[in-house]
């Protein structure tokens, strides 16, 4: 499932991963590495909300 950052609106799409954060495509949001933050505003995973 896609997840959106409630602080800035960045959308994490598992199909794309987060290249800037070194996360490959195919990684589910729940499986992101410990300490991962929003690549745009640095908010933590708790700031993310189900998108779509």
């Amino acid at each position, binding site marked *: 499932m896609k997840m*959106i950052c409630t602080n800035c*609106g*960045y959308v994490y799409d598992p199909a794309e991963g987060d290249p800037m954060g*070194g996360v490959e495509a195919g990684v589910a949001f729940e499986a992101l590495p410990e*300490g*991962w*933050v929003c690549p745009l505003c640095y908010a933590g995973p708790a700031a993310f909300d189900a*998108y779509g």
Partner: protein
Amino acid sequence: MRPSLSSLYQAVELRSAIPPLLIGERTNANGSKLFRERLLADDFAGCLQIGLEQEANGAQVLDLCAAYAGRDELRDMCELVSRFARSVKIPLMIDSTTPEVIEACLKLYPGRCVVNSVNLEDGGRTARRVFGLIRKYGAAVVALTIGEQGMAMTAEDKVALARRLHGLAVDTCGLRPSDLLFDALTFTVGAGDETLRSAAVQTLRAIREIKASLPGVGTVLGLSNISFGLAPASRRILNSVFLHEAVEAGLDAAIVDAGKIVPLARISEREREVCLDLLYDRGGEGEGPGPLPRFIEYFKGAAPAAQEAVAGAGAGRFEGAERAVSRQVVEGVREGLEDNLAILVRRLAPLAVINQILVPAMRQVGELFGRGELLLPFVLQSAEVMKRAVAWLEPLLSREEASQRTRVLLATVQGDVHDIGKNLVEIIFSNNGYEVVNIGIKVPAETIIAKARECGADVIGLSGLLVKSALIMRENLAQFREAGLRQPVLLGGAALTPRFVAESCVPSYDAPVVYCADAFAGLAALRAHEAGSLTSTVWRAAAQATAVRPSARGGEVQRGVPVPEPPFYGCRHVTEIDVAEVLPYVNIEALFRGRWGYRRAKLSAEEYEALLEGTVRPLYRELSRRAVEEGLVQPRVAYGYYRCYSAGDALCVVDGGKEYRFPFPRQAAAPHLCIADYFRSEAEGGDVAGFFVVTTGEALDREAHALYGADRYRDYLMTHGFGVEVTDALAEYWHARMRRELGIAGSEPADLNGYVTQGYQGSRFGFGYPACPELEAHRPVFELLRPERIGVTLSETLQMVPEQTTSAIVAHHPQAKYFAV
């Protein structure tokens, strides 16, 4: 499967395990004056509110009727049904006799509803048509015992009509008996009409007979007709007693004002006798007054239970005021609150009402929030109800009781003007039974120490949004230790992390120092403190990997990027800005989900869409309208372009023969980014930098503070959040304009998401934000831009006033993007 009705949200069995099924009657243009007035004023939201109140008061199904002379019933019902379907959790009863209206509603409604009603007035022509629709859309239907001669008065006539309707529905139109609900209609026993003295008896007999002779069908009754013409307080008692008798006779569902049903246990034996005499027409044979005069006489003295029944409006169905008040807090419903409290304080001490009912209810609110089942705006509505309840009870508390509560001192630290976070914490703490002393923003450590001693604070809470505020908190703690304070300190704010608190703050103080992610984490800390189990935040470095920092885009910063030619050098001030042009830049997702807290959380995509469409978007539209039409937003901009060159980690800006130095921090870890790198050095030929200060004025701030002062917590959050995001939108809008003026707007984003991901050339870096946390830069920025001319000033702690103001340096370098040091 048992016959049921359903809404988008839930199913309700027609044969309730504890009959009767309660059908709310107040959303009826003919039955409720308030509903009618709102309908006539096209106030559909207000109509919906009445429905939501019925639901909160215990209705399990909602009767919805908009048939009113001079109105377009089709249009009104379609509008109402779509709104109700989204927002009301209980199923609807479509109250109309017009087949066109019925069909339109059945098409619209996303569940199984029941239609009210058909009859045999025209010999069955319309009934046949409606039964067809019922079958087509799989609904249920109420059939009234009305024939060609009008409403049947005797049990025999009522039953005969029911049989005819049953035959038409089941044998001719193919409905199932369980799709039918028969309403045996009752006349009043309160008008003194001799022919109606047995009205209740006839109806009760008909209910018994219909249930016995037509297996599988249900029965329903509009309850309040029985008491027409009697005094309101006595009506509630009579209605309640009659309801009990009808259920005994086999009634499955009743159309009532759910909040006005009085539990039988609360009706005295004597009252019940008087009512039963009237209903069964007993004791009128001999000398003396008949049952009706005796009834009127008895209730003239306003019997206690009748009084209580009046006060108990909103008390819910067969449940005590305890449950009702608890539900009102959890669901954020204010109506009837004081009445319920008045009942409660006759049984419980005011302090017990707070501790045994209100506080546990708020605790439940906190738990629901923690599980993601209740969103922040609804938490604030609950807090509003709590606040009202406590305010009502407070004068009844003894001084001693009032002073027993744990006292918390709250402050936003020195140099930080942000108060929304602290104020939300105050709302949650104070409405969970804690005494809060809120000493405001920009509070120096000395003042906090003095106030903590003065008010005898048990716990101190520090708040701050700015990156720098985290460091201030650490310094404060050292000063607290020096001063000999021993109270636990709770820390909260956007720039804090549990790691920073554990590693940098905890060692600076001798009592517990606790990181609180939100107000409810703070609440948990207060409870731990009271239980003697509060401990400092710990950070287990081994267990948690270091934060992953996003890497730079494109690696090494390219040199020799062409320098754009600005349209002018120096500063300009713009006050003629069309708000309507700015609004499209508002980051809607960040506003709805972030600032306002309307997250999807555990809702399905459909439920979330319903929440957005029913509540959130209308709110945004209204604020936007007021922003444009009422001048709630007054956009003003000071901006300029300047020659500059980088020198190591600093940027030197040249204006009017004077040089202004902006030192920027550099990332300690790879890729070691620094804002200065995006500009050419003197040797590289120098560069151009843009700056802006934008404000949306003070009106929104003023309104937000007034709302906070008036305990309208939800609206406070909404107004404040709107201000923050509109100000950010103005920055976005103006940044786009500056890109155009610089001639670098070749690749502008196609949609809002493109702005979120900075899909344009260059970047803007806000002062006080992660790439340049120091506010010191505001001094040269103000010398360059003179924002005083647009009404923006600098506080002694270098923050801009009004609050809804933001500043930035604009870099044109294609690799310049947000980062954090």
